[in-house]
């Protein structure tokens, strides 16, 4: 399958959501603490995201990556602290899209790729209404952006893992999301599928969509993201990859489960010895 990725909708966040002013931080998290019955999942996290940036969130299993995403998406109530999206509570916003780590969707559900992408517009269409020509155009554009036009009418079980991820990104585009939270989208993808996924993410950048991705692959985080966040219940570091991935920080996050090799003055070369088999954490 040879497809060139096009970006048909060149809209900016202000065009999608007139209330969203440029230059402001899209997401602001202040002193966020979330606890489960088993203890604290997130401890006093504060950070901001700038419109259009691409941030990787890394940390060992149980570091609270999924919890952080759910709290930002408004699916979890924080114990203390505040999450605001464009200055408002996340509850008031549909411009966040959250792609869970294990999509518990039934892949045999009788829906096509197009149906699933259209679901992103459910709220925009509104109750008791049907999709308009505009909705259909937005859905077609979204599917084209992720390179799935040839698969639009396929039932969703006929997609590969990478195509499934791209379908959900198309749905987020159809939702006109300004902030996409993706929980380990590359886990289980082969290299070509990863490349395609990142091509789509580059297309999103042109539309100034802010993306936050949880990852296990530190090399990928270092090479393909503007900023990285190192998390282990508390925020160990946030910033440019070479500032965050220091031997000290990585030891704090992973202990001796990881070998850190510093290649001269280059970005630390990280050799993962831990993960792989335990990547399927149960949230």
């Amino acid at each position, binding site marked *: 399958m040879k497809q060139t990725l096009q970006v048909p909708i060149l809209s900016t966040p202000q065009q999608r959501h007139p209330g969203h002013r440029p230059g402001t931080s899209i997401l602001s998290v202040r002193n966020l603490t979330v606890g489960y019955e088993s203890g604290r999942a997130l401890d006093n996290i504060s950070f901001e995201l700038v419109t259009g940036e691409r941030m990787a969130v890394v940390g060992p299993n149980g570091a609270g990556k999924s919890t952080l995403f759910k709290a930002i998406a408004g699916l979890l109530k924080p114990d203390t602290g505040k999450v605001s999206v464009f200055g408002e509570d996340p509850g008031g916003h*549909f411009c*966040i899209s*959250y792609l869970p780590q294990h999509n518990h969707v039934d892949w045999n559900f*009788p829906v096509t790729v197009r149906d699933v992408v*259209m*679901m992103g517009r459910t709220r925009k269409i509104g*109750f008791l209404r049907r999709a308009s020509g505009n909705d259909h155009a937005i859905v077609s554009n979204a599917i084209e952006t992720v390179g799935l036009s040839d698969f639009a009418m396929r*039932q969703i079980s006929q997609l590969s893992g990478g195509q499934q991820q791209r379908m959900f990104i198309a749905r987020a585009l159809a939702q006109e999301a300004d902030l996409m939270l993706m929980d380990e989208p590359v886990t289980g993808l082969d290299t070509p599928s990863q490349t395609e996924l990142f091509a789509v993410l580059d297309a999103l950048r042109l539309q100034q969509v802010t993306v936050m991705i949880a990852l296990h692959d530190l090399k990928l985080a270092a090479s393909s993201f503007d900023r990285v966040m190192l998390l282990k219940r508390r925020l160990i570091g946030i910033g440019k990859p070479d500032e965050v991935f220091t031997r000290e920080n990585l030891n704090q996050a992973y202990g001796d489960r990881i070998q850190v090799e510093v290649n001269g003055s280059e970005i630390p070369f990280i050799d993962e010895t831990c993960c792989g088999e335990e990547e399927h954490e149960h949230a």
Partner: protein
Amino acid sequence: MLDGLLAPLQYAFMVRGMLAAVIVGVVCAVLGTYVVLRGMAFFGDALAHAVLPGVAIGYLVGGGARGPVFWFAMATALLSAFGIGAVSRSAKLKQDTSIGIIFAGMFALGVALISMVRNYTADLTHFLFGDVLGVSSHDLVLTVVFGVLILLIIFAFYKEFMLISFDPTLASTLRLPIRRLEYLLISLIAMSIVVSLQTVGVTLMVAMLITPAAAASLLTRKLSRMMIIAAAIAVFSGITGLYLSYYLNIASGAAIVLTCTILFVFVWALTTIARRRASDGTRVNL
């Protein structure tokens, strides 16, 4: 042949029965697609059984009249439906456990009430196994009104029901009122059960909800088409069942459900063979 098909229709009760079977078939089949896709077969079965005490009380209150039976059954169905949800949430029990508790308890209550009034027993068995040929004009009006109402609501909330069934996470990020939509869906199931009581009775009710939808799910990969195919299977089963009932002199509810089941087995066998044949080559897209 044509005479054989027309002969039963000279009786008004047969015509009313057939209309009722067709309407009930369509309503249950369309709603049943959600029951099948959401894995609510046990819930549907339980809810049908849980209606029995309502039927019994309605029967006692109305002295055998059908009107009170309908409304008492409706109240009981809605009450049980919400009761199951409330118990499983507040007691932190698994949902099938709370369904089982309420279902068996309500059914026992129904049997107890019926056993207190022996002389009514014969009539009440109609509600256990259905009596589509005893449908009155008044029953038919209620069936049509509620049937159309249920179909209209399914049509109106089509995309929302599809979304909460397929991906609750997206539904909650989009701030859809998931809880209320689920209660609406459950209420529709409760209503459809009451509407169908007379056709197949409480014990066979679940077949009307799941069998046509399950057969349809084997034939298509599109929700709207699944609803249409399920409805067609149900209509065919309703009509064929009643003819079988007329000519072979078997219980009408059982005849309808049996026809449905045979159709399902037929579709299942056909699609299994088709898949086996296609397994080493191209994929079949039915």
